[in-house]
């Protein structure tokens, strides 16, 4: 079993997107537990990829290929999971704020959260505070992830948090922020619950929020 898991981990880390499906299939046929494949191979590999990204050993192109590889692997293993959605750690709504069309960071975080067992609803880019509040009302996510790449759009995050407060929804959802110009100070200043400097940190935070839930 350990060999199968190691091979899958190496394939995700190395971005071997063409081989992953066959490798996961092989592991399943050998009787490896689907949950173990997800946690100990696919997610564990993305943790390594995230750490390598954090230290500047790899960059977005390699991380994207690893994330695509992990996703392909997940597609094979997910139908084999018992209990379906009940295994989700929680629901996350992801969006890039109004005026901002950049979505790589958000997409990477979404893919990694999905890999980490969250149900992710990616609303896309250019989302106004009003639209986001409406979505939070109807989807009732555990976490709202907001992304901005531009210094010109980061103030929109504050607007979203203000709108959640106005609608009495602020205590119902954890707000996680990230993006190139955003930092911890800014996150604290606007009253966000957390800040992730990269996709791996965002996933770690989401896990922490999920673990703290009753």
């Amino acid at each position, binding site marked *: 079993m350990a060999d199968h898991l190691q091979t899958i981990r190496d394939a995700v880390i190395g*971005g071997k997107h063409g081989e992953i499906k066959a490798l996961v299939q092989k592991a399943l046929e050998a009787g490896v537990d689907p949950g173990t494949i997800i946690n100990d191979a696919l997610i564990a590999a993305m943790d390594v990829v995230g750490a390598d990204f954090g230290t*500047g050993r790899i960059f*977005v192109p*390699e991380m*994207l290929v690893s994330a695509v590889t992990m996703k392909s692997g997940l597609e094979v293993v997910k139908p084999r999971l018992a209990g379906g959605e009940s295994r989700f750690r929680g629901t996350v709504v992801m969006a890039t704020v109004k005026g901002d069309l950049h979505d*790589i960071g958000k997409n990477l975080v979404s893919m990694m959260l999905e890999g980490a067992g969250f149900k992710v609803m990616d609303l896309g880019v250019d989302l106004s505070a009003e639209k986001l509040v409406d979505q939070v009302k109807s989807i009732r996510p555990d976490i709202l992830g907001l992304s901005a790449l531009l210094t*010109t759009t980061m103030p929109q995050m504050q607007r979203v948090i203000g709108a959640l407060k106005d609608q009495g929804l602020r205590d119902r959802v954890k707000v996680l922020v990230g993006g190139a110009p955003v930092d911890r100070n800014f996150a604290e200043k606007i009253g966000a619950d957390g800040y992730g400097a990269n996709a791996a940190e965002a996933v770690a935070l989401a896990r922490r929020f999920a673990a703290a839930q009753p």
Partner: protein
Amino acid sequence: MKLNPRNLVMSALLGGRPGPRPAVGNPTSIACHGLMEKAGVFFPEAHLNAQAMAELALAGHAEIGFDTVMPEYSVVQEAAALGAQVDWGDRDQMPDVKNFPNADFSDIVIPADFLEKPSCRVVLDALSILRRQVGGRVAIIGKVMGPWTMSYHMAGTQNFLLAVGMGERDKVTKMLRQLVPVTIAFINAQFAAGADVVVLADHATRNLVGPYHYKEYLLPIHQEITAQVGGPIILHVCGNCSDRLELFAESGVDAYHFEWQVDAKEAVRRIGSRVSLAGNINNPQTLLQGTPEDVYRQARYAIEAGVHLIGPECAIPLSTPIENLKAIAEAVRSGF
């Protein structure tokens, strides 16, 4: 050397004699709400009308006291001329590309009249207006996107970077190569229209790609571009690029416009004898959220470190207080 703002800037960028004070300027946009109000010109008009574009640029010199005028506020003028659909935004929002015409990495069709397309013509006309109004006295800065940034706009950033990650070298190189003539032609047209110096903005930033990507794909292209253009070039790559400073210094540019995340002293020590350094004042924390005193202190640090042209690190947030920009000008007027 005649001591006027233009000469201070050109001397600083070309490694010449220092004047009585450092030069202050903006290789990228300093358009903010306060400046728009002073100029009486607002977005999106300032992206689309040459006179409005020039007037907003002039306000940077007249109202804030910068030694430069830089009339291109967006990063999508070329993409629009190449057929990408652009949302020109509004008073509170910068323009951005809405679709990616070459997401399938199909051949990019460069119109024969590329320089006459409205989004390029407007920049050239604005530069000529500035030349007539302040030529020889204030440094006129043009700005052109490099092939890497244009590829983000034509193929989509994620799509383009995924191809890089997948090792699809031929596909990536073909797209970059098709865009090189666009960059060269627009730079040379901006010099002909009246620019003293042109910014080559090519976002091979650490937030996205590694130094090895820059070295493999872009350094040879930048060397080719700098060899074929008719005037001084400032390279703009934002983000923390400490890991690729020496590569930038090999590109043949005259100056590098850099972020606060790269320590000014370290940048000057490592490449300051080979290229001039410009920028270094932090946008999101200091210029947007800090006080004029914070800005002044940071500008003084950059001056003492030996940064040649002091200014914001990148296009500033639109809600930046104008007093914070003035604090940069004030810091340089305290001399070296």
